[in-house]
């Protein structure tokens, strides 16, 4: 049985790493010197030389720089998840300063639209959802604070090491006042928003499953390690033994995620309401209880009602934060074959020594050890963390990681195509003070980033996956970008930032009946509540993140359901109608050409104008005709791909 489980967990094993201290991902990050290249004029940044060396070694040339018009659209879609307006394109085209591109990137990084876009990337990794999913779709009414925290962290360029520590142990950091306490605690949503089996008749199993999910997500998100395998047996590929697993699990078993483990379970929230408001709420609750009593007279009820109304006037709703807290510390015993009913030896809480290069991370006696774990993960000496995050950033910019499996740096993941480049970036990242924005600048200022898609056919044929990064790999924009772009271009996008649209009480079921209404709210998609048990058909069709698992490598499919959405959805038809009204009200001498420029960001060709005019004239009703033409352009490959 054990053997079968091991085989099942392993699958097609490719090699054993046990005892392999020199395994690349565990080796210290080296500050590698950029290689010498033939065409050194081509390189703009050091990182270009690492890539160019590979291209030259293969006997190829890098692809020429894309046109400015293409680049400006690429930068907007990449950093904001929204296409530029015609005016923004013109501004950039007319900017003839030598550093126009650098300036553009700097401006884009200062916009709040940036955090909405890149925060969403991180939310994929954090398997963010506003409801539990799994067996009981209980709502997370305060999870949105974590989402807004993530968006703000990207906008503020919060140092990534701090970002890590807050998400794992923000409650254990000192805070000088309530405001700081709140700011440090909201990140804890990371550990709490995962999917849980909440109606499990076996509370012990429930707790262990939750701990397992937290450890697995933490491992993938920050370390690129699949820790979960070691729950039942020593990890046969990566250096995590079953003892290591239960040493780590002790930290999480000393951490409180739920307040009630019986069916249906309830999760822990920090009440960070101001003290005097808290007192008023306590009084309100006390009076409510009296009012509900049978024996309270009618007059008394009326009077209490008035009193409550006075008390709640201008009383802000309690400030609740979904997040973990501390339990009494405990070391736990190894669960043989993952079964807590068959226990082995006790393991002290701690970080696997194979990960720390033998250094012992001291666990406090009276605290879970989350803070020590978080600090170790976020330390400059940890070779995994900086590599994993710079690789994620690279993946989100270029569509493919230097390590093509961004969530798995272990033996069953793929090897980096450019290991020296990865180290170069990781080194720079730590040196920059863990600044994500500095990495964006570096990557986007590179010559690699500015390449065109129009590569030498031989290169495309020999390197179809673009492992050499010798061209820009055209890719479809993500589900959120499609929806947001259509709303924006039809002048419907509501730029309101943050907050929650969920209508629920803590620990109550999410009401799927609201989904349709949510989907029609013209706010950016990142703000639509994520219902883990259902979701938005239009988003799912375009491969929106599966909020049940941490995933830094979203797939991109092409299926007929996507076409049906673009042909028939309410979003499409409402938006195209709005756009048609704009076209008509413009009274432009050449509306076809205006619309093409508005949506595709380029001059229309003569042929397109003729085709468009004929289409509109033949169609019948003018407004319907322009709506139809707008749908054609919204659905076109040119609109849907980042070139």
């Amino acid at each position, binding site marked *: 049985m054990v053997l079968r489980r091991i085989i099942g*967990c392993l699958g*097609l094993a490719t090699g054993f790493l046990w005892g392999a201290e020199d395994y690349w991902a565990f080796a210290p990050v080296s500050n590698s010197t950029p290689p010498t290249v033939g065409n050194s004029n081509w390189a703009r940044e050091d990182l270009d030389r690492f890539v160019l060396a590979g291209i030259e070694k293969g006997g190829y040339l890098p692809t020429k720089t894309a046109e400015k018009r293409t680049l400006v659209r690429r930068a907007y879609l990449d950093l904001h998840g929204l296409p530029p307006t015609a005016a923004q394109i013109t501004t950039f085209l007319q900017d003839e300063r030598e550093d126009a591109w650098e300036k553009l990137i700097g401006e884009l990084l200062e916009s709040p639209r940036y955090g909405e876009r890149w925060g969403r990337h991180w939310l994929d990794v954090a398997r963010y959802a506003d409801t539990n999913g799994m067996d009981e779709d209980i709502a997370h009414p305060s999870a949105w604070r974590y989402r807004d925290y993530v968006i703000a962290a990207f906008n503020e360029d919060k140092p990534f090491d701090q970002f890590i520590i807050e998400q794992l142990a923000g409650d254990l950091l000192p805070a000088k006042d309530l405001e700081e306490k709140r700011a440090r605690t909201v990140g804890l949503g990371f550990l709490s928003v995962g999917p849980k089996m909440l109606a499990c*008749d*076996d509370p012990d199993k429930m707790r262990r499953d939750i701990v397992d999910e937290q450890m697995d997500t933490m491992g993938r998100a920050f370390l690129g390690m699949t820790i979960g395998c070691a729950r039942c047996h020593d990890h046969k590929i990566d250096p995590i033994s079953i003892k290591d697993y239960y040493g780590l699990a002790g930290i999480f078993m000393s951490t409180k995620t739920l307040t009630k483990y019986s069916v249906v379970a309830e999760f822990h929230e920090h009440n960070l309401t101001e003290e005097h408001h808290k007192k008023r709420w306590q009084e309100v609750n006390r009076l409510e209880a009296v009012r509900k009593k049978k024996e309270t007279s009618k007059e008394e009820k009326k009077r209490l009602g008035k009193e409550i109304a006075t008390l709640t006037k201008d009383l802000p709703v309690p400030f609740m934060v979904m997040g973990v807290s501390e339990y009494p510390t405990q070391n736990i015993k190894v669960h043989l074959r993952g079964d807590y009913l068959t226990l082995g030896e006790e393991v002290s809480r701690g970080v696997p020594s194979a990960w720390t290069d033998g250094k012992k991370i001291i666990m406090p006696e009276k605290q879970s050890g989350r803070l020590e774990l978080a600090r170790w993960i976020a330390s400059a000496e940890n070779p995994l963390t900086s590599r994993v995050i710079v690789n994620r950033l690279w993946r989100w910019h270029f569509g493919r990681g230097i390590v093509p499996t961004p969530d798995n740096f272990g033996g*069953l993941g793929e090897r980096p195509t450019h290991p020296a480049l990865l180290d170069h970036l990781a080194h720079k990242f730590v040196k920059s003070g863990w600044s994500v924005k500095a990495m964006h600048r570096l990557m986007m200022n590179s010559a690699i980033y500015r390449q065109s898609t129009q590569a030498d056919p031989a290169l495309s044929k020999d390197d179809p996956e673009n492992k050499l990064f010798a061209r820009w790999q055209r890719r479809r924009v993500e589900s959120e970008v499609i929806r947001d772009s259509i709303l924006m271009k039809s002048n419907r996008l509501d730029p309101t930032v943050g907050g929650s649209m969920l209508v629920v009480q803590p620990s109550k079921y999410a009401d799927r009946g609201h989904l349709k209404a949510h989907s029609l709210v013209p706010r950016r998609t990142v703000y639509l509540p994520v219902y883990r048990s259902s979701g938005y058909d239009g988003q799912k069709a375009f491969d929106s993140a599966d909020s049940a698992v941490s995933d830094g490598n979203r797939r991109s499919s092409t299926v007929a359901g996507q076409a049906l959405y673009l042909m028939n959805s309410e979003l499409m038809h409402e938006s195209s109608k709005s756009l048609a009204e704009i076209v008509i009200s413009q009274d432009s001498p050449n509306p076809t050409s205006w619309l093409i420029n508005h949506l595709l960001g380029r001059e229309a060709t003569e042929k397109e104008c003729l085709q468009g005019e004929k289409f509109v004239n033949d169609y019948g009703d003018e407004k319907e005709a322009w709506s139809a033409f707008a749908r054609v352009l919204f659905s076109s490959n040119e609109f849907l791909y980042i070139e």
Partner: protein
Amino acid sequence: MLLRSGTGFGALALQAMLAREAAGKSNAPPLPGTAKRVIFLFMHGGPSTVDLFDPKPLLSRDTGKPFPLKAPRITSHKSKNLLLKSPWSCQQHGASGAQVCDLLPNIASITDDLCFVKSMHCSNSRHGGALLELHTGSDTFTRPSMGSWINYGLGSENENLPGFITINPSGSHGGAGAWSSAFLPAKYTGTHISGKGTEMKVPFIDNPLHDQSKQRKELDLLASFNKEHLTQRGANSELESRIASYELAFKMQMEVPGVQDISSEPAHVKKLYGADADPTKSFGEQCLMARRFSEAGVRFVQVTHRYWDSHGNLKKEHEKLSAEMDKPVAGLITDLKQRGLLDETLVLWGGEFGRTPTAQGNDGRDHNPHGFTMFMAGGGIKPGTVYGSTDDYGYYAEDKPVHFHDLHATILHLMGIDHEEFTHRYAGRDFRLTDVEGKVVRGIIA
């Protein structure tokens, strides 16, 4: 690699098959399978199969007495474990002598087409966990649904239709998790058709213009723009498949409503399913719709009937639910047989668990994942069989127990897929529908 993997050459054949599927072609199964399609009639809530198919003389005799065997360590409700005899009786039917409750006269009349597995069991005592276990094989993690796996393995029989349709699924207890493709490609996700009567629609299948010719014009102009765009950029398979996807969507839009529309069915067929009158109308219509989808080539069709969770009021609730369910189920199987489709269509009936022979209150039963009955028909199943049994009181699967993993292994086997070789690599691991478990139940295969 083959040696280390322990999966052998079959996996390579399967990979080749999947590669063909990726190219969008329909595939012959790699092994000779008997079933081409599955229709799963899911009884959400957990029907009391100890009452419906598994009568126990000792349960009648000892009613009111404590359950003499050891009660399970984990139960969903605290119980005094007092036995409760069935409010109904069962009779033997057909050549197999299978026991069927008097509440189900239509199913009783076709027992010689059915195979009863009376020793089903699963691991989870709650709806959500057991439901996910039944649909995906896991009550712990998010995994692809069996309908997704089957489509991933066998590809489409009709490119103009989705390969996996779930009619009126439950939004709770797992919700979309029950028809999700999880880490398999999104195209294998189940298409849910929800709502009442004629409102039940494939998402976005209705053209709001109500005018095919106008939409055709749009798509023609779109194709022209897209082709021009492609010409400027040179051959590119992704851009080309997106161009093709609109044509496929247009065809789907033309075909799906017709397939779904049961109004064209003759009166005697509607009557057979009970789609003509209450209380069978609603579920009868859904079963008829399921047959039409299946006949048109949808690999996996699921219909959900609810809500069998009779913790109290067992007698009244089960009588009502049985009356709604009996005729449509028997009608569907009879209809498939008459059309010569039953041999290649596997029909599966069952809930996420059964109910305890012990009482909850004086007219209710708790969840029982430890022993319950499911039945199958067609698709290479041995007809007229009764397989396995529970203990003398109907609590635990005793003789030849069949876990959901075994059920999955058997379904895949019937479709020509070896469940141990059929894997998908995700996040550095090879996953199977049956995880590391599952044995094909040879005894129920014809």
